[in-house]
């Protein structure tokens, strides 16, 4: 082997091989990281003092929804909605309570429970329950919007109430 070829091989061993190894190692780490949650993020790696920031996002739906409970709860919500439509707020309240107790992670049940409290003029109670509903609608923009609209409506009603109760 000529001197030139030996020099090229030596330079390769000194500079390129470690880079290749580091690259392989990162690929391996990345795969292992993926196993942690199975939902690798799309965020690009950045160079932080010579290392990548390796980020994963927990699954957005990583809580196990209890489907049977949800189905049973939603059926009760439908019964409650009929009562609410008829203006029978007290009776509807009982139904939405039942729906929440059957499935306490059913955001729709909380939403309508809050709506029923608005019907009964329990505004601050309704706002608190909407906090819970909102926390359960994390990835459902149309429901988040509904919650915000109802919140706004309640705040207006509360403002009206406080205005009318002010002494002249």
């Amino acid at each position, binding site marked *: 082997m000529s001197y030139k070829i030996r020099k090229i091989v030596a330079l390769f061993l000194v500079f390129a091989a470690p880079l290749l190894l580091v690259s392989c190692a990162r690929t391996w780490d990345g795969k292992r990281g993926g196993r942690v949650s199975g939902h690798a993020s799309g965020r690009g790696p950045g160079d932080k003092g010579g290392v990548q920031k390796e980020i994963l996002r927990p699954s957005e739906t*990583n809580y196990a929804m209890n489907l049977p409970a949800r189905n*049973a709860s939603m059926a009760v919500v439908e019964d409650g909605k009929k009562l609410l439509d008829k203006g029978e707020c007290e009776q509807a309240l009982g139904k939405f309570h039942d729906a929440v107790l059957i499935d306490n992670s059913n955001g729709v049940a909380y939403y309508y429970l809050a709506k029923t409290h608005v019907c009964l003029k329990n505004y601050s109670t309704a706002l608190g329950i909407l906090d819970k509903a909102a926390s359960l609608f994390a990835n459902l923009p149309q429901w988040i919007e509904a919650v915000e609209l109802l919140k706004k409506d309640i705040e207006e009603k509360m403002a009206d109430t406080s205005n009318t109760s002010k002494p002249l």
Partner: protein
Amino acid sequence: MNGFIKRKRKIHLFGFIKKAFFGFIVFLLLLGGYEYRSVKRLEHQLGRSLKWDIPSKIYSDAAYYYPGLSIDLLEFKRKLERLEYRERTDKVEGQGEYVIKDGTILLYLRDFEYPTEKFLGFPIRIETSEGVIKSISRLDTGESLSSFKLEPELIARIFGPSMEDRTLVKLDEVPSYLKDAIILIEDERFYKHIGIDPAAILRAVIKDITSFKIVEGGSTLTQQLVKNYFLTSKRSFSRKIEEAIISVILELKHSKDEILEAYLNEIYLGQRGTSSVSGVGEASRLYFGKDVSQLTVAEAALLAGMIRAPKRYNPFLQKDSAMERRNFVLKRMYEAHYISKDDYEKAIREPILTPTRTARTNLAPYFTDYVKNEIASAYSEDVLTKEGLRIFTTLDVSHQLAAERVVKEEIERLERDYASILPKDKVGELQGALISIQPQTGYIRAMVGGRDYEKSQFNHISQALRQTGSTFKPFVYLAAFDPTRGGAFYAPSSIISDRSFSVEAGGKEWSPQNYDKMEHGDVSLREALAYSYNIATARLALSIGLDAVVDVARRAGIKSELSPVPSLALGAFEVTPLEMAYAYSIFPNGGIRAEPISVISVVTRDGKVLERKNMEMKRVFDPKPVYLTTSVLKDVLEYGTAAAARKLGFHGIAAGKTGTTDNYRDAWFVGFTPDYLALAWVGYDDNTPINMSGARAALPIWVRFMKEVVGDSKKDFTSPDGIILVKVDKNTGLLASPKCGEGVYDLFIEGTEPEESCLTRLGR
């Protein structure tokens, strides 16, 4: 002389007549006064106003069942027994009956008046397979049901001094055959006499003389009512006279139907524990588990027959005597043409079916006291013992019974297994307490305030102020993980020193020590909380500021006194276990605090809602730092101070924290799944050290309870938006690099993750 004697006699006779006349006038006045008084008393007591003291009743929450729900058939059967449903062998024919056979449940639901709806019972079929409900359908229409609810269980009655249990009934609610049977067997000429029946008295006297003993009393229904309602059971001639007079007055003032209705509500029909059961309404519930309107002819005949001697004909204890007596009444009814031959033959063949007898009269005594206390400002003891209110609560009786059993057995086990380390010759028993709540609603599901209510009524859950020990620490970490607090960012992987230090507090040197008396060098916050390191936690609290810690504890719901002193972080202040349980509920509830609720509504016996309590909740923390804290509290059970939970057989997803106070005076464990939270406490009332840690004394109570009521649930805590996992170096908490050693993924609030590499600490 004779004339003198005659005149003297005449004067004597005149004096006698005069005295007799005055005596007669006085007698008439007294009689008139007595009658007036009696009439007034009768008017008052039999008027339209309340006639009897009706104990108020405390009910549990209703239970919900739906396809897909796990169901333990044995536990379900126990629940039906507590609800006084009656077991049949093949089919259900009336309300309050059930059959459980080969995984199929036939259940005839009962009518029940809820505060917001009147439920009318109907029969259903529940198909189960491998402990799961597969389908629910109506037996009568075949309609498939998405769910059904079982009525609340009666937890306790609130009695006055008379200890009489009674369910008032109106005359038109009572089946005609029951009224007929009672009149026939007790007072055949009821509609003919005027309160007393000379013919019946003569007949009774003849019968008693010929039998050489008292076999018949000859009292009318009116007289029986008067005796039970107005007079004592003392046997005397004067009382008999009084009884007769009042009976006649009663008949003059009231109709026969009014008297009969009063009688049906008044008559004594047996005992339920220490309380007496009066009236046919309550007796129907006790002996047949149903409303009086639903009694069969045979059941009505037995009830009528029992009036003479409730104990002798008690169908729970004397089935043969009861059967004989029932058949005798049925025969009389048939002979008197009150029932047809077919009805008679059918009734004679009917077995006597009673619900399983429940010995306990109060299923949750500490909770009952707590509820009474909660509503005391609105409803006095007098109202509660007289007005027959119905109080609907949040309690789950199955959970309550499990909690009571677990606390009692585990405390006994501790006394047995650790007799050598418990104090000797101690006055006062080792106490244990447990509370469980549903974090999302704030509902109290079980409350055991002590090991034995008979011995101590002091409720250690709601009344005892105890030092919290390490159970307070999560609030320090929650404050540290909250980026809105300002100051340095902390994450579970952040590193803190667990090396001894001193600080001046209150003019004295304060130097925290670890439980194992060791120092652990640099540790992550995750390790510090999982292993409950005191030194690291105290450092952290001082670093973020003690006021911030107090603020977090207050927002979580702790109302007891807290001061920003260094020992605060290690749980030096006293709170009630109830406060602590609710403060922890913000973790499974993602930063939302639901207010404690035990009473849902208070309803009059006519169904009018007097009071309704709503679920009240409010967001008090951002969900992200709450989630980080919860994730660390999960590690407490995985490898930290509560790792023994796994060895004790609890394999579900849960988080929690142990607590042991100075000198081992209190042992705590607070743990939760996403849907359920329970707190267990063990200690002595006088703060004598128990010489056991929270993991040793309180954790086993929590584990056994949770295994029974929750099982090994695999439902995990929900991660809020903005939480990321970043690979960090364990030793520095900075970004991982293979050159620093193996990295681990840990949780961060997005934007607070480290930007620096671990290599910078290696000097590269």
